[in-house]
């Protein structure tokens, strides 16, 4: 049976980008559709009825949702260029850092991005404390996956690109080279890696989009209490 692989994503979603990266890194032939989330396609709604979100991978008609679940599915289905190591301990470590990225890094950076005033100061402090764990984990390693890009790198890869966008919008540097030399080096190396470097959404378009997302939070904070 001919292999049919379809990826539903958006032009800007960092979660969709993860799925895009792994398919490209493995040389899988696939089609993608950039959804308009204000007008979700019947295919999206039918393929992800629980969350109605992107990304969704549809392999020979069968849908898989949640980007980290998609990453492991693709890694298990197309065995070339493996993302996860063989050793169970190393696999657990990779999953741990991918989950840490979702539960802690993403949340703390997002809070630093949307909060205002004193709350923002605290959020930035917490984000920096969180990022220190990543800096520590990179000691002696080129990537979170070791010598080559692994699951945790793809899970955290959004940092390499979106941090710059957030920093531009809020006017605060979150990842300073002096404080985070290893993380900064990783961000650069990841951003310029083959396949990854051709995939980034246009910077200015992202800045405009995230500035617009931040607007209501700024306006709400400016309201007299």
């Amino acid at each position, binding site marked *: 049976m001919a292999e049919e692989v379809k990826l539903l994503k958006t032009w800007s979603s960092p979660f969709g980008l993860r799925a895009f990266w792994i398919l490209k890194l493995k040389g899988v032939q696939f089609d993608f559709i950039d959804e308009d989330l204000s007008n979700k396609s019947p295919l999206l709604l039918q393929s992800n009825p629980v969350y109605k979100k992107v990304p969704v991978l549809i*392999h020979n008609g069968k849908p898989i949702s949640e980007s980290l679940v998609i990453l492991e599915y693709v890694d298990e289905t197309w065995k070339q260029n493996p993302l996860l190591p063989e050793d169970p301990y190393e696999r*657990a470590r990779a999953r741990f850092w991918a989950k840490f990225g979702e539960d802690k890094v993403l949340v703390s950076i997002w809070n630093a991005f949307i909060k205002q005033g004193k709350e923002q100061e605290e959020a930035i402090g917490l984000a920096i404390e969180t990022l220190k764990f990543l800096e520590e984990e990179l000691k002696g390693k080129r990537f979170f996956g070791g010598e080559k890009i692994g699951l945790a790198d793809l899970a955290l890869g959004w940092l390499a690109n979106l941090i710059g966008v957030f920093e531009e919008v809020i006017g605060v540097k979150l990842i300073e080279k002096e404080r985070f030399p290893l993380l900064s080096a990783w961000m650069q190396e990841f951003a310029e890696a083959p396949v990854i470097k051709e995939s980034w959404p246009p910077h200015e378009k992202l800045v405009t989009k995230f500035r617009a997302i931040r607007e209501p939070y700024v306006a709400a904070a400016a309201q007299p209490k």
Partner: protein
Amino acid sequence: MANEVVLLDFWPSMFGIRVRIALAEKGVKYEYKEEDLKNKSPLLLQMNPVHKKIPVLIHNGRPFCESPIIVQYIDEVWKDKAPLLPSDPYQRAQARFWVDFIDKKMYDSLRKTWTTKGEEQEAAKKEFFEVLKTLEGQLGDKPFFGGDNFGYVDLSLIPFYCWFYTYETCGKFNVEAECPKFIAWVKRCLQRETVAKALPDGKKVFEFVSAMRTNLGLE
């Protein structure tokens, strides 16, 4: 090499119970260490410096944190007995999706049924029943979420049951009346010795929670 397995845990933790069930299913001998969460041991802080939480599995001195990651590790290492995840990649993806769903939706909505009052509590109850209905839909006519066999999704979900007496009493609702299919699944799981032994008594959990609610000013 000798297999040394230690579990740092807290008796009513549904996340810890998942690991206890997984180890029991595989017949793994381990040392259980009860943590006082108000006075965490140096071992816990050393083995899980990032989150400082239980459960932590220590296998031959190496730590594993986060219950879904620990359970998948157990399944990969002790792979000759009682497979917990399916072998087919698509079925595995579905199993991971549903455990992720449980972790995103069950814990927070349930916690609010006993830590809040009034409107907030009503909203939490509504959300909880929506979650259960979704899970019932996913279960369908299968005996277990894993199909014919008890598996990863089942063991990730069943630990919440020992908290149901607490939720139902604090929130004044009855799960069996609303979701009989769900309770039928619970009863099937409880027939397994590994599950029956791992779940603490619901009334004991309620006593523990009552003490906490008093401290929170909710009683």
